[in-house]
Structures are given as C-alpha cells and as structure tokens.
C-alpha cells in the first residue's frame, strides 16, 4: 500500500506529540532507569567485585541496565496499545482508509524513538558515575544501535500483548511478570556463576544475557560475568542476539499485524 510508511509516521508523530503534551511520561520513563543506575552503582557497586583488576562494577553494570531498560520497552508498547483499545481509538483507526500495519508499526517506531531519548539520558548519567566505554566512538554508537534494535524487537511482543489483554492494567502486570525475571536471571547485574546450575544454563541462553554480553563487547569489555558451559551463545553473544532479534520480529510482527486486523475490541 502506497501510504504504509507515511501512515506509520503519522501514528509515530502522534505518540511524540503525546510526550510533548504530557511531559511527565517522558520525565518518569527517564528517571526510573537513571534511578536504577544510581542504586546499583552505589548500593551493590561497593560489594560486587568484577574480579578483573582495573575494571570496576559500573563498567559491567551500565550495559546491563541499558539492556534491562530497552527490554522493558514492551511494557510501554503494551500499555499504550491496551489503552488505545480500551478508549476505542483502535476502532477509529481501523475504520480509516489506512494501511493495516500502520498503527502497530507507528507504535513500535514511536517507542524506539522514546528509547533514543532514554538511552541518551542514561548514558550521560552513567558517564557521571564513572562509566567509560573504551571501544571508541563508532563502536559505542554501534552498541546503542544494537540496543535500539533490541527495543524495537521487544516492542513487537508488547504489541501482541497490548492487543490481546482486556485492559492497560492487565498489560502492565503481565509484562512485569514476564520481563522482570528475564532481566534478573541473566548476567546483567551479577555473575551467573553464583546461581544454581540449572539457572546458569538458562541465564546463558537468555537473550538478555547475550545482549548484555554483546554490548559489553561493543563497549570494550571482555565477556565476563558468567560463562559456565562455554556454550555458543556465551561465545558469540552478538551473533546470538541478532538471531534472537530476527526470530522475535519474524514471529511477532506477522502475529501482531494479524491480531490488529482481526481484533474486535471488548
């Protein structure tokens, strides 16, 4: 359809306008990750040793918090769409002569744009508390691009959840239960080697871990913090993460678009 791209951009623009009209959303969605940076840096930073001379906790922590934050993109996506459903806005969109994928694509794009702002603020906060990526400018940019792509992929899971649940509140709760353990059963905040064996394997294959490991590489760190089985994902975190992202999008984009087309609110 010839308007697919411009329709999506109108929907994305609507979301960005919302941020201007209700700036609280943007403020709080940035404060939360910054708060995490400060808490982990100063509460755990003192007691968790990286085991590598010259590398302090904050260097390992920052990629972990970046990944956790973009993983939670799907919460915003799910809640936003569930609200639009509840309020009948999705019905109105569906009665318009627009591309069938515009609303969901626009939403995913909008949430990625929000991520750019959030990651920028977090990066600056990290810098203030001692985070110093050592891989050079291009690799750092590549790392952030990698994070944005992950957020984009995750928001497609959020699209499906948002269009499937009955209310925004349910969406929020469902997402929290799903994502929170995923971000903690990983190498993001502590070495996986301290976990029970079964969890170690899970953590090693966990997309959050491969993302964190991948970002640590791109930000100039060795992949430390938990290699138990020398499995392929722990050896090739970037490749594995890309595979995960492609898989997520290959499954959830068609499902989400179909759900949008067939959805009947209420």
């Amino acid at each position: 359809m010839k308007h697919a791209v411009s329709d999506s951009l109108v929907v994305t623009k609507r979301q960005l306008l919302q941020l201007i009209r209700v700036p609280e959303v943007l403020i709080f969605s940035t404060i939360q990750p910054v708060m995490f940076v400060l808490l982990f840096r100063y509460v755990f930073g003192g007691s968790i040793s990286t085991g590598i001379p010259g590398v302090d906790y904050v260097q390992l922590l920052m990629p972990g918090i970046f990944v956790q934050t973009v993983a939670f993109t799907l919460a915003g996506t799910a809640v936003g769409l569930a609200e639009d459903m509840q309020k009948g806005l999705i019905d109105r969109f569906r009665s318009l002569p627009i591309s069938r994928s515009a609303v969901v694509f626009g939403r995913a794009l909008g949430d990625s744009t929000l991520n750019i702002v959030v990651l920028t603020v977090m990066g600056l906060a990290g810098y203030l508390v001692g985070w110093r990526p050592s891989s050079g400018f291009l690799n750092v940019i590549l790392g952030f691009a990698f994070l944005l792509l992950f957020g984009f992929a995750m928001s497609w899971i959020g699209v499906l959840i948002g269009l499937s649940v009955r209310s925004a509140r349910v969406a929020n709760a469902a997402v929290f239960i799903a994502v929170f353990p995923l971000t903690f059963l990983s190498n993001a905040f502590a070495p996986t080697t301290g976990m029970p064996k079964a969890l170690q394997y899970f953590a090693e294959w966990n997309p959050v871990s491969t993302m964190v490991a991948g970002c640590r590489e791109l930000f100039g760190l060795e992949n430390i913090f938990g290699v138990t089985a020398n499995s392929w994902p722990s050896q090739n975190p970037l490749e594995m993460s890309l595979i995960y992202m492609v898989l997520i999008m290959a499954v959830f984009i068609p499902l989400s678009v179909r759900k949008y087309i067939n959805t009947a609110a209420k």
Partner: protein
Amino acid sequence: MKSVIAENLVKTYDKGAVKALNGLNLDVEEGTVLGVLGPNGAGKTTTVRILATLLTPDSGHATVAGIDVIKNPDQVREVIGLSGQYAAVDETLTGWDNLVMFSRLYHLSPSASKKRAEELLEQFSLTDAAKRPIRTYSGGMRRRLDLAASLIVRPKILFLDEPTTGLDPRGRQEMWGVIESLVKDGTTLLLTTQYLEEADQLADDIAVIDHGTVIARGTSDQLKRQVGGERLEIVAESQDLKKVTEIVERVSGGKALVEESSRQVSAPVTTGSKALIEAARSLDDAGIHPLDIGLKRPSLDDVFIALTGHAAEDKKEEEVVDPRARKRKKK
C-alpha cells in the same frame, strides 16, 4: 438508491453462546436518516461495527454505497465516517492535534490537514478549545470533536453509534443541532440510539431492533399508529392512585398502567375526548383533584413496549441470559 443494505446478518460471540445478530435486515435510502432503535444488547453496535468494516459477520451480506463490506472493506473505509459510543479521540492531545492527525491519516497534505482542522473546529464551535487537551473537554465537546473527526473527508455515509449516550440534556441538544445541520447538507446517516425521543427527533425512518433482528420498521408516525390510538393519562396524589386506577380502567375498558414513582395512571382509549370528559367527571364525583390529566398520542416508548414487552431503557438480567425464551413466549 439504497446507500446501505444489510441482508440476513448473523453474528455470534463466545462460540455461538451469545447471538448478537440473528438475521438482521436493514437498508438506508440515500440522503435519509435511519434511526436504529433498541435497548442495550439488542445488536445496534454490532450492526454498526459490521457496516463500518470493523467486524466480519458469521453470515449474511452487506453493502455500503454499493460496495461489499466483506469483500472490499478498504473501499468502504474511503466513503464512510464513524463516530462511536465512546469518544474515540486521543485524550492527551489537543482538539487541533487530533483533527490534524486524522486528516493526515485520510491522506490530506499537511497544509490541507491544517485547513480542514480549522474548518471543522469552527463548524463545531470548538475553535476556542482548539489548543486544549481533550481531557479538559466536557462530554458534549468531546462528542462534537469525535463527530468532527469522522467528517474530515465529507463522507457519503455516516454511522453514529449512540451519539448522545451519557450526555447531559444540554450536551444532547447541542449534538442534535449539529446532527440536524449535517442531515440538511444531505449526508446519509445511520444512527443508533436507545432514546426514543432521539429517533423521533432526528430520523426519517426508524428500525426497532431487539435480540438481533428488526422487529418493526417505519416512520415515527407509522410506528405510533401500530400501537393504536391515544392514551388517557392521569397524575394524582399517591393516596388517590387506587381510585384513579379504577376510574381509568372503567373508562378505557382495559387494563391501566400504573407508575407508582411518577404517580401516573394511563391506559389506551378509543373514544378520544369523550373518554377524557368522562374521566374528569368521575374524578370530580369521587372528590379527587388530579395533578394532571390529558390525552397523549402514543410515544415511541409505547411503541417499544407494545413491540417488545419491555421498555427501551431497562433491560432485565434474565432477558439477557436467554433472549430467545421470552420471544417464544410472546409468539
């Protein structure tokens, strides 16, 4: 020419457990207003959703402006406007933002979108509120904006699903004014409502639906005629109601309807003013001074009660549970 045709629409929910539409037939003549009147759960919204391409029927056939809604939904969307039961606009954005966004989604250019937003705000007396977020709007303003958003491309056919539900009397009056001016411009309109007064006021033609089928169709006058003549209505003090009921039943020769809360007793009469005089005389003889006494032409409320056995706005629980049981009983 018929702008809207629905034939034998059937729609069930929950795997057939709930029958929303049960072979519904409708048509709307071009340039006219059809009021679809029915209680909650009668199938009004489902009908609109099918015609506006939001829902696919289990079976049946429907065309809008001659286009098949099931086969060519995209083409249908080009020619319709839909304004739903809940104001479906973005509440965080301003009225202006919303109209520009929807204009863009109708593929107007950015400058044309701004121009159209301005025109619509003006037309719906919302210019002063243009830069305020919708969440600060009154109920009536919201509905007007919602309606404005459905008129961006001057649709040939407009669907309004309960446009005044939940509005206060003033908001309703405003909405009616707006809708009447649209109709004057020749828009074909299908309007659902549970307010008989609203159908009476706005619609050329009324389809009464209940349990997913049309149970009566005609102009307001035709429907009223179906119920038969006039009604004798007397309002009296509570302690007199029993006596008044006796008098009304004697004069009318039938069963009277007593509404305790409004202290009103009424019954259909065939003898016109003669019945009125007789009733007045009897009341006087009994020493009762009625608060109000009169002959009323049947309202659409009476039509509805006569057709369905229940009033339009109160839908009892048990009827919802098994809609067909009651119907059989009536036949």
